[in-house]
């Protein structure tokens, strides 16, 4: 620790060069932070909640509806704690590009999703208002909705009985996610299924999917098999899987996000390694006489090695932490700029940890060669300028 001023002085011996290197490290880690956030946004396994929830949908296709008559039969199965159902609505508010999830379900939906918090009074209002709808806070903020507003939604799949596509809901509640990392869940609009079923033109008595909450997550497989057995050999066979598996299957279909992010990061860090490695090599080359003097006055080989390594790690830590901080500041703005197409979660603690680990690692790697050279300097040669 007492050598810190020495390392610091060595680092800023050539101010321009150090600042430039720090800036390129900053750019690399800014990218790292942002791409990690993108990856985290698609990383379903990170949402640990919901291990006790199963999703039952048609085995053949996500667009095949299931009869609502399955509800009491699923509920009666042993090991099932609670069941609810939902139908995808696919409506549009103003502009089809401002996509958000909207579907019909029942107020009991919120019993299944304790991670979503709807104030008790608004929950009661949702139960008593047939035309009621509730939305997540994020969505309400985006469109400037307030409780009491009438929200016109344009149907794309389900016209009303009179053939018109204009549905109007009364906003009775705004829910929020308890965990800020699940803010993506706040981009949903939910309305009453009984109203929906009565008012739609076709498809009466059908639901899109069931959500089953099991009493014991360890018995989830057994319950899932039992649910699927209810409809075996019928015209509406089901496939029941954990919510996680269901979501994962969906994300997998979008793209191999991990691979794309991984390849970009590989290219970025390889370049970074070269840039900083070059800087450190130059820094040591220039200081050969100085290092020789230090050795002459009694610094051990090991101490010189440590000094140079410290210098390169410090260089990376400064740049890297600044980069991650910049990413943390930029991310919320980026989510806003994306127009709600996706919501990036704030930078998770894991990213900071992994990032810091990478900084130290890269610092050690790029410092290794110059440091070894510094350690092996022979005082006589170095002082003589050979």
């Amino acid at each position: 620790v007492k050598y810190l001023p020495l390392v610091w002085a060595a680092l800023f011996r050539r101010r321009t060069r150090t600042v430039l290197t720090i800036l390129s490290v900053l750019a690399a880690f800014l990218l790292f932070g942002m791409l990690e956030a993108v990856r985290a946004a698609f990383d379903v396994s990170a949402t640990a909640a919901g291990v006790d929830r199963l999703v039952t949908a048609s085995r053949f296709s996500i667009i095949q509806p299931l009869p609502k008559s399955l509800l009491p039969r699923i509920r009666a199965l042993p090991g099932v704690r609670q069941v609810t159902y939902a139908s995808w609505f696919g409506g549009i508010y103003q502009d089809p590009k401002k996509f958000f999830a909207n579907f019909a379900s029942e107020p009991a939906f919120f019993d299944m999703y304790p991670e979503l918090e709807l104030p008790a009074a608004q929950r009661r209002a949702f139960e008593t208002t047939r035309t009621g709808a509730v939305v997540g806070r994020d969505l309400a903020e985006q469109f400037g909705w307030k409780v009491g507003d009438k929200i016109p939604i344009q149907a794309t799949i389900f016209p009303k009985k009179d053939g018109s596509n204009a549905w109007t809901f009364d906003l009775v509640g705004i829910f929020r996610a308890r965990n800020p990392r699940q803010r993506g869940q706040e981009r949903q609009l939910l309305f009453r299924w009984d109203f929906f079923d009565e008012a739609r033109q076709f498809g009466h008595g059908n639901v899109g999917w069931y959500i089953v909450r099991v009493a014991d997550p360890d018995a989830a497989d057994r319950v899932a098999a039992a649910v699927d057995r209810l409809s075996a050999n019928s015209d509406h066979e089901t496939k029941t899987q954990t919510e996680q598996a269901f979501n994962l299957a969906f994300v997998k279909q979008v793209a191999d996000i991990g691979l794309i992010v991984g390849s970009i990061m590989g290219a970025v860090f390889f370049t970074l390694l070269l840039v900083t490695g070059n800087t450190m090599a130059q820094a040591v080359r220039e200081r050969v006489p100085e290092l020789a003097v230090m050795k002459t006055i009694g610094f051990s080989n090991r101490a010189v090695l440590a000094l140079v390594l410290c210098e390169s790690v410090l260089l990376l830590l400064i740049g890297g932490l600044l980069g991650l901080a910049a990413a943390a500041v930029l991310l919320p703005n980026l989510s806003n700029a994306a127009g709600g197409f996706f919501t990036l979660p704030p930078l998770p603690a894991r990213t900071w940890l992994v990032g810091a680990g990478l900084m130290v690692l890269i610092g050690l790697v790029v410092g290794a060669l110059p440091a070894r050279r510094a350690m092996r300097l022979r005082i006589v040669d170095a002082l003589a300028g050979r």
Partner: protein
Amino acid sequence: MTARRWDLLVGAGCGLAALAGIGAWIAMPWFVLPLLVVLLAAWLGLTRRGRQAWSVTLVGVSTMPQRLAAASVVVIGIAGVVGVLVALLAMGDGFEATLVETGSDDVAIVLRAGANAELSSGLDRPSAALIARTPGILRDGDGRPIASPELVVIANLPKKSTGTDANVELRGVGAEAWAVRPDVRIVEGRRFEPGLRELVVGSGAHTQFAGLDVGQTIELNNQSWTVVGRFEAGDAHDSEIWGDAESVSSAYRRTGYQSITARLVGRDAMDGFAAALASDPRLKVDVQTTRAYYGAQSESLAKLIRVLGFTVGVIMAIGAMFGALNTMYAAVAARTREIATLRAIGFAGLPVVVSVLLETMLLALAGGVLGAAGAWSIFHGYTVSTLGASFSQVVFQFQVSPALLWNGLKWALAIGFLGGLFPAVRAARLPVAAALREL
């Protein structure tokens, strides 16, 4: 103190001018480049200062092997930027091209009013018959309108790469579908027979999903279907499986269709066709050209990929620029005495600036070519699939077009220019006496 302030001013001025230049540069069409090169060559060859610049550049370039490591930092850094940028943009372009190719200006798609995609649409049989009789649709040799009533369902099939189920679009088509889409041609086997549970598979679907070889039988909705042919369309239909509309509709217990796709009598027939549909009180439908329909479907994802590509590209470019700055500052520092000597014997400042700039841009050009070539050799024609607007897999290929490569090279040269500018100015402004004294 004043000298220092002057330095700052020059720096700021250079920076602003450079930024403006870069803006124009990025927007520059390709034919301006040869012009610039010719102008530069003329200046180098014909004027005194130009010849001076040329000889200084030669000295710089000839000493490059001595600083191979530092020079390679510039080259590889810029190659990385260009490679990633070109690859990401090629992905966006490929996706968009696949969907846009699917559409055409003289083919119309009719959906139920309000439906924004085939999947959410629905047309009953009487409406379908009415639409097919609407004036404006081209007729075939037998006088039948070239219109195909179609329905689209999503089926689950295991993907070859992961073994897990993914969504594939199963399209039930009418007898005229082949005439509506002449681009679709059978490359293996034969067409399906109407009324039978037979399928033809798109080449993209065939490569992505297991069990779709010609002659194989697959289970759809608990019924077995035989694959009798494979087709190629060169567009989004490649990701689909086709069967007879009536067979698909009975297998999935559908009573109506979802869309009518019709070939119009000409490119300008669209307005008349739309007006005829709108004036029929029995129909509540939306109509658009398939080009508009598929273009809208690709818009948001292609835009997302481009925004991602540019963001990543810009951040990487900034990183690489600092790397180049570093290297060139070091190069200038190493040649301080040499440059000062040149200045002392009468070389002006400009040739020195130009030579440093030329040297950096040469390195940048090497990096750009390397990155572009890398992106082209690895990613051109690389096939991937993603979830399209209809919740099913769309297979598409990366398209590394010449325009993209040109773009990549422009970025490389711009990075090189910025990276070389400041060191070059510093080299030219070194006080001769002080620099000569430096050991």
